[in-house]
């Protein structure tokens, strides 16, 4: 298993194709928590279940104002067909060229197989990695870890806001 980059470090910036003629950068999502789900491949059975679950949870993620993106080494046309077939309502980014470069920058690339790890990241609004988890490749990690992290993040942010307010008043 690859070594994911640590919590507390700045999340590596990236710009990837989200559709054949559109790009998405991590910076575009600044100010909100971002959930990145690296996964090995479109169409594989475990990935299908995992992404279907996250798709179902989009309203829950939005309650935390979080944005979800999926990243694999599949190309844009493959992502497009897959998202349509599975009715996915969040962006799938193509880490296609140079292959796996973004996954590598997150320590989430499996060099031997040439695919992404099944790795989850929650990045805070300032672009710092708040939580990450690497699942065994054949195991669907579910979403409990993501939701727990988003809840802790909301709490910490509201604590720091109230601390800042108190400090200002004092």
């Amino acid at each position, binding site marked *: 298993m690859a070594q994911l980059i640590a919590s507390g470090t700045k999340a590596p910036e990236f710009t990837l194709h989200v559709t054949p003629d559109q790009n998405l950068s991590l910076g575009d999502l600044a100010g909100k928590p971002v959930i990145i789900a690296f996964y090995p491949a479109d169409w594989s059975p475990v990935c299908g*279940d995992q992404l279907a679950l996250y798709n179902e949870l989009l309203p829950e993620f939005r309650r935390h104002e979080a944005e979800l993106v999926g990243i694999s080494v599949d190309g844009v046309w493959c992502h497009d067909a897959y998202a349509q077939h*599975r009715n996915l309502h969040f962006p799938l980014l193509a880490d296609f060229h140079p292959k796996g470069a973004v996954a590598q920058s997150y320590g989430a690339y499996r060099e031997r197989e040439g695919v992404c790890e099944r790795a989850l990241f929650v990045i805070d609004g300032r672009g710092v990695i708040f939580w990450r988890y690497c699942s065994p490749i054949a195991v669907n990690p*579910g979403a409990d870890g993501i939701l727990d992290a988003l809840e802790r993040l909301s709490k910490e942010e509201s604590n720091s806001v109230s601390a800042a307010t108190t400090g200002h008043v004092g």
Partner: protein
Amino acid sequence: MSVLRQPVTSADHIRGSPNAPVTMVEYGDYECPFCGLAHPIVKQVQKHFGEELRFVFRHFPLTQVHPHAQTAAETAEFAGAHGQFWRMHDGLFQNQRSLGAPLYFALAASLDLPEDELRVALETGVYAPKVKSDFIGGVRSGVNGTPCFFIDGRRHNGSYDFEELASAVDAALQQARAAI
């Protein structure tokens, strides 16, 4: 290891003896073919353990891949509000391939449930919050797909064929007996 974070309460649908030493909770989706396969197996396991096992079913509909899963779950809840959850539950799984309003109304009629009330319940989503609460509780307990079983609060990571489920229940039963 994933554990059940939502304890079983009176708001749950429980089949079997309320005082059974072992509890098996299933998170399921009426349109999921694997849950359909598991349905007769669960009944077989319950028959096998009799008074020693109580079974709880909670909803985990993946609505974006299973377009009828949500309405089926709400129909089961509607029947539950009329004291007929389990007969509707069985009817939905036994007719899994024809889920949809005509089936719901036919099943309701066969259980003497008021069709007009069911129609209103589905249109207004009266039971949607209950279904959602089951779903979110499941997610928080680490449910990652269906069917997902918890035996005495611990996720069953094995398969759901009769032998594996029964041996997991058996192990829980031994533990429960040892604790007495």
